[in-house]
């Protein structure tokens, strides 16, 4: 059954049970959020998403308040704006403001909302917590001096990956994100999937593999399919100056139908082999047991000559080809076509069985 409500003067209808946040967004309101994540259980803890229902005494957190028939909502009233500013100031009070060197610069919710509400400094400032976690793992940087305690990482770790490596430790002012016993990720059930980085709204969690090579907000993004296992996860290659500098998630099921942005350690952190100095850059021909660089014409002519000579002397079935489970469909098609049509043998296989 649908219910009707008015949001910023606009009447809309939503199904019963819809949360106010969704209703507001449907009405075109831009509601800021930290702890809300469409794929995770609701936390309702950051209070950034507050809105004002007419006639109610208090502002409500829209992400956890069901819409009711007849409600009249204001999403940017002066009370709402003031409340959101307080939330931001409290966050700034314990935030290491190093935006210039932060990987999240340009797509950070805290930065964006401070800009939007003109919050430059905090009335509550003073306490530096020193929560940076010196974690020797090669994949994930954990700088909790930038953490806003939204707990999205904790929920993603549990509800997407199921690793339960991290949780909230201690209460109140001392609350922070930690593994059991506050140790390193390597000594926890962490599987380095990086789902926590994917959901973190600020720069508290970031990729060590991509660090310093280009801020994701400034990189070009190209959607592609993972080159490792057969699951077929898709992700965004981050490109800067014609170089791969990182991998980020696209959480839209239309573009990431299998994994919805979730990845494993190989997909998220295993891409840098493409930049290895050991990549082959020129054809090679072996002479007297040693390779020497060759031109394409020379190498291809020699390859063709060798194939032709063997085919002439021993027939086409004396030649075999191993195509590859790594290369594309188009390339596999051409490989078997070459073997069958140009050489004349069905001796083509790949390592499906290995």
């Amino acid at each position: 059954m649908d219910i009707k409500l008015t949001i910023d003067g606009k009447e809309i209808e939503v199904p019963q049970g819809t949360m106010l946040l969704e209703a507001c967004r449907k009405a075109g309101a831009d509601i800021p959020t930290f702890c809300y994540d469409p794929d995770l259980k609701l936390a309702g803890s950051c209070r950034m998403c507050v809105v004002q229902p007419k006639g109610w005494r208090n502002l409500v957190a829209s992400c956890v308040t069901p819409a009711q028939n007849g409600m009249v909502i204001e999403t940017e009233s002066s009370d709402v704006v003031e409340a959101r500013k307080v939330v931001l100031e409290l966050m700034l009070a314990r935030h290491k403001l190093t935006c210039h060197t932060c990987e999240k610069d340009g797509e950070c919710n805290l930065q964006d909302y401070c800009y939007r509400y003109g919050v430059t400094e905090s009335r509550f400032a003073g306490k530096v917590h020193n929560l940076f976690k010196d974690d020797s793992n090669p994949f994930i940087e954990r700088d909790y001096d930038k953490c806003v305690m939204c707990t999205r990482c904790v929920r993603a770790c549990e509800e997407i990956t199921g690793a339960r490596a991290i949780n909230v430790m201690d209460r109140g002012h001392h609350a922070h994100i930690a593994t059991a016993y506050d140790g390193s990720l390597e000594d926890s059930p962490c599987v380095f999937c990086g789902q926590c980085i994917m959901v973190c709204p600020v720069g508290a969690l970031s990729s060590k593999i991509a660090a310093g090579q280009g801020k994701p907000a400034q990189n070009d993004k190209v959607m592609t399919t993972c080159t490792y296992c057969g699951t077929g996860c898709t992700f965004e290659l981050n490109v800067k100056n014609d170089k791969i500098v990182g991998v980020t998630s696209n959480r839209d099921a239309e573009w990431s139908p299998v994994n919805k942005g979730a990845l494993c350690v190989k997909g998220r952190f295993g891409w840098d082999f493409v930049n290895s100095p050991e990549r082959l850059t020129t054809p090679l021909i072996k002479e007297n047991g040693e390779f020497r660089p060759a031109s394409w014409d020379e190498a291809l002519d020699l390859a063709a000559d060798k194939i032709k000579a063997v085919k002439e002397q021993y027939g086409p079935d004396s030649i075999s080809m191993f195509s590859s489970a790594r290369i594309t469909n188009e390339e596999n098609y051409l490989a078997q076509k070459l073997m069958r049509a140009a050489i004349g043998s069905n001796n083509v296989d790949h390592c499906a069985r290995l």
Partner: protein
Amino acid sequence: MTNSINELENDAKCVFLIGTNTTENHPVIGYKIRQNVLKNGAKLIVADPRRIELAELADVYLPFKPGTDVALFNGMMNVIISEGLADREFIETRTEGYEAMAKVVENYPPEAAAEICGVDAADIIKAARLYAESEASSVCYAMGLTQHTTGTDNVKSCCNLALLTGNLGKPGTGVNPLRGQNNVQGACDMGALPVVFTAYQAVTNDEAREKFEKAWGVKLSGVNGLTLTKTINKAYEGEVKGLIVIGENPMVSDPDLHHVEEALDKLDFLIVQDIFLTETAQKADIVLPGVSFVEKDGTFSNTERRVQRVRKAVSNVGDSRQDWEILCELSTRLGYPMSYNSPEEIFEEIRTLTPSYAGMTYARLEGKGLPWPCPNEDHPGTPFLHKEKFNRGLGLFHAIEYLEPAELPDEEYPIILTTGRSLYHYHTGTMTRKAKGLDEYMPENVVQINTELAKDMNIIDGEVVRVATRRGNIELKAEVIDGIRENVIFTYFHFAEAAANVLTNADVLDPVAGIPEYKVSAARLEKIQ
């Protein structure tokens, strides 16, 4: 897979994993199965000689002896039949061959099966009931099921189980091989196999051959070709004289590496097209530098048959070339000119010859891709197969007896060695060993040894030991764990410097599929002093 990946998270009420260490080898599928158990209360059955991560969540965990899969399936089916849990209607309307299968299965009461498999009969009974009584049960497997001399039998047994309980053709059911490599499905679909053209059209079928002869304008051979493992053997015997290898590394991935090396040494020529100077490329006469996945356009087909786009993000490295261009150049020089303007143009040709891809275009693949079969441009693709009927009409039961693995432990080699992959590496390590984080996190191979066995042999965690088989031996660190059967040891095959495939057996293959028995070799563990 007969069914789609997301059904494992949303639709399956019971998931039966056999021979798949899903959270390490298909991590994202592993997450989904785990969430289905945790959030929706799906039942989970795990059969694996190693206590894999998902075993911790399992309702039944069967640490069965490597290579006894058929006995396990037959035991479960025996319970299902004798307890009246079979889906009679499905069997009558959609299958044939039931009687012969049931007759064989009679010989495997749970106690007998349990004896062969080295597990409790009560657990076989419990697993059988869970699988048969759940509303939708899905069985998933990987190389743990197939890399045996009886691999084909194992897969057929798996199908028997699904047919017996009607667990096919519906969401959340199916027989679901989880394929280990990004485009192994696509390579098969594209006819990179010795017996078929694209879409599994047999090279021995006159009609199929005529179709391709017409399209390609050339006479084609109707003789089945050599599989990969046979090629190596024939090269060793001197019958195969020339080999072209594209993006594969048999010098690490194939069984019995000493044998592989000798075979490659005998060739008149070896041409390797790759992105790194792999162990195999080092043996080549000519090396042709192709490009990596970030430098190319094209498509991959994942394990659920979904064809998805791969997109070029950066330029070729140095003077390397697009793999499709290299193939065109080579073919042209061989007197069979090939020329295309783009991978999309190649795809257009593919779909005219490949019925299951006929309805796909790059434009249609743009967002979330399409799972085949997709026979025409209005077809939405097929998330799960066999809805109303099987390809052959009726689903066929196979009567299958348990056969022992080819190489059983004996006095000299008393332990079973089994091999596989780690979460942190991929196949022969050509890529992951050059990924900084992955190689730093897991820089070397280990052999997993049961605590009791280690205690008996006085081996401590981290100590370097020697593993020997009839083929050879390697030295590597011991990882002493509880979660592995006592007389089984496990090692990874990613590491060229301590290569597991020095140890594995190339002599015995599955007679149908030609798969080597990577999961069972008789081995000996030695202390080094």
